């Protein structure tokens, strides 16, 4: 019933945008008309249909004559997959560390606390850039790992606080007296109670992960060619703003609607949780 009361057109719109993007990601291999590596130098800088182009290249071509539609489909796939895995992975790692630290306490708690403090103090982008400098190559897997690293500290902080307060609650103490294992108490009682807060944090973290990945790729230190991401496409298109603005503008538009949709949904979800 809460759902029905708060569903505004904007929220429905954001849901639709995200569902559409999800379908695109799933269907990308079948939808894309040509191979990514297919270079056609005779057809460079063809404008998209809505800027006076032909249907041979519905979204135009880039500086190498590659089909923009195929590039963009692959870019959405790469950027969103990294963001989804990074967000979920960060949530799992952070929550586990936070819960375990709070439950066991002592030195482990102090270590996790210091690490969380550390990551909250030093700008994450700088830490990530330092990591990239050191790592031999930033391929897809490495990049997913970096994105997991990007947001774990907030989950750990939240999970730790929730576990600490739960530890002193009668329902947890009752279970301990009845002989339930720690694992059972954490997974069956503490975690479900923390779920709402953690999910809201995921909705905050997700756009930030997209932001981080696209920013790094834009700067040329993220996803490397011949693979593409939305940020990398904008980075390529920036140099052609004067003669082929669509190369940068179309991926830019996609990033805009994605991050704004998720942020609006996240705000809405947080209001729901706080209203409870």
């Amino acid at each position, binding site marked *: 019933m809460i759902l029905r009361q708060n569903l505004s057109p904007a929220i429905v719109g954001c849901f639709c945008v995200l569902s559409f993007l999800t379908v695109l990601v799933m269907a990308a291999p079948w939808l894309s008309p040509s191979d990514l590596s297919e270079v056609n130098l005779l057809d460079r800088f063809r404008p998209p249909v809505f800027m006076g182009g032909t249907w041979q290249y519905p979204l135009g071509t880039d500086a190498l004559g590659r089909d923009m539609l195929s590039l963009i489909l692959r870019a959405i796939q790469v950027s969103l997959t990294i963001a989804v895995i990074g967000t979920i992975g960060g949530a799992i790692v952070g929550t586990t560390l936070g819960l375990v630290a709070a439950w066991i306490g002592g030195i482990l708690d102090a270590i996790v606390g*210091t*690490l969380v*403090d*550390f990551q909250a*103090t*030093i*700008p*994450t*982008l*700088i*830490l990530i*850039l*330092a*990591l*990239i*400098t*050191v790592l*031999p190559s930033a391929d897809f897997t490495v990049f997913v790992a970096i994105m997991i690293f990007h947001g774990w500290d907030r989950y750990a902080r939240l999970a730790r606080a929730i576990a600490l307060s739960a530890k002193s609650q009668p329902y947890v103490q009752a279970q301990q007296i009845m002989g339930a294992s720690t694992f059972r108490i954490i997974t069956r009682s503490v975690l479900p109670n923390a779920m709402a807060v953690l999910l809201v944090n995921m909705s905050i973290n997700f*756009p930030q992960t997209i*932001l981080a990945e*696209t*920013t790094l790729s*834009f*700067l*040329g*230190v993220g996803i490397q060619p011949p693979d593409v991401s939305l*940020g990398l496409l*904008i980075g390529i*298109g*920036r140099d052609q*703003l*004067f003669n082929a*603005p669509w190369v*940068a*503008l179309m991926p*830019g538009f996609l*990033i*805009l609607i994605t*991050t*704004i949709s*998720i*942020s*609006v949904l996240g*705000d809405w979800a947080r209001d729901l949780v706080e209203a409870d």
Partner: protein
Amino acid sequence: MNWYLFRLGRACITILLLLILAFFALAASGDPAQILLGPDTSQAAIDAFREKWGLTLPLWQQFLIYLNGLLHMNFGLSYRTGESALALVLDRIPVTLSLVLPTILLSIALGVPLGILSAMHRGRFIDRLAITLSVVGLSVPSFLLGVLAMYLFSVKLGWLAPSGYVDWSSYIMPVATLSTVGIGTYARFTRSAMVEVMSRPMIETARASGLSEGIIHRVHALPNALTPLITITALEFGHFVTYAAVVENVFGWQGTGSLLIESVSARDFAVVQAIMIITGVTMILANLLADLSYGFIDPRIADLRHRSARRLRTVCES
């Protein structure tokens, strides 16, 4: 006093962690001899190189040498140019500050009033507009804003130079791009701080004694709401420095940020680590100062902490 010592100790541990991380990253970044001299170098040359840079010593000795170097302001040499990494970074810092300082001022000057306005008209149109704008401002990547601004004002309208420093108008696009994030952050924090303060009993009392809403907002609520903004500014400073890296790159400014990206691309870790340490230590000190200044600005907070520390001690001792 205990609490201050605790904060100070925590800051020291964080700095030490940062240095250990920087050092091990440096050690793990591969054998500099191989990277610098290339694969075709003779073994004798490699050995001489390793000897010269102290790479044959055990790791912990290297770490001590490294710390000693840092204390003497020696951050190592850039692999690319052979210059001192610190000198390279210090050379670029004024450019970054000339972007970041106006941005912080602009963000406070626009974001705080926007947050106050939004809190005063809570739930009404102005509030929702302000929230939506700040959500948009926070969720759009700054490189995208920069590219869009460049497209609109340089390509389409031709009003501003697309990149580099020409005259004062070159500041408009980078500072505006950077400020979008800052204005959103300040507006959101000011709003929630104001809303929180407005729900305190003292506001009821002020209302009951017949003060006008304007006076309540300005005299009673605002000073209380502004205290957290010190922490926000300390935290935001680090964010601005990283966003500046992006914006400098977009608009072709030769600041610390573009140096950072160049060095990451070239795997020039000495420079990356110098920037990381300088930014990190600045951030840690800024946070520490913000924390410590709370006690001076609002004596109740210091008092509260003393009492909770004392209570903790009695609990521990009993």
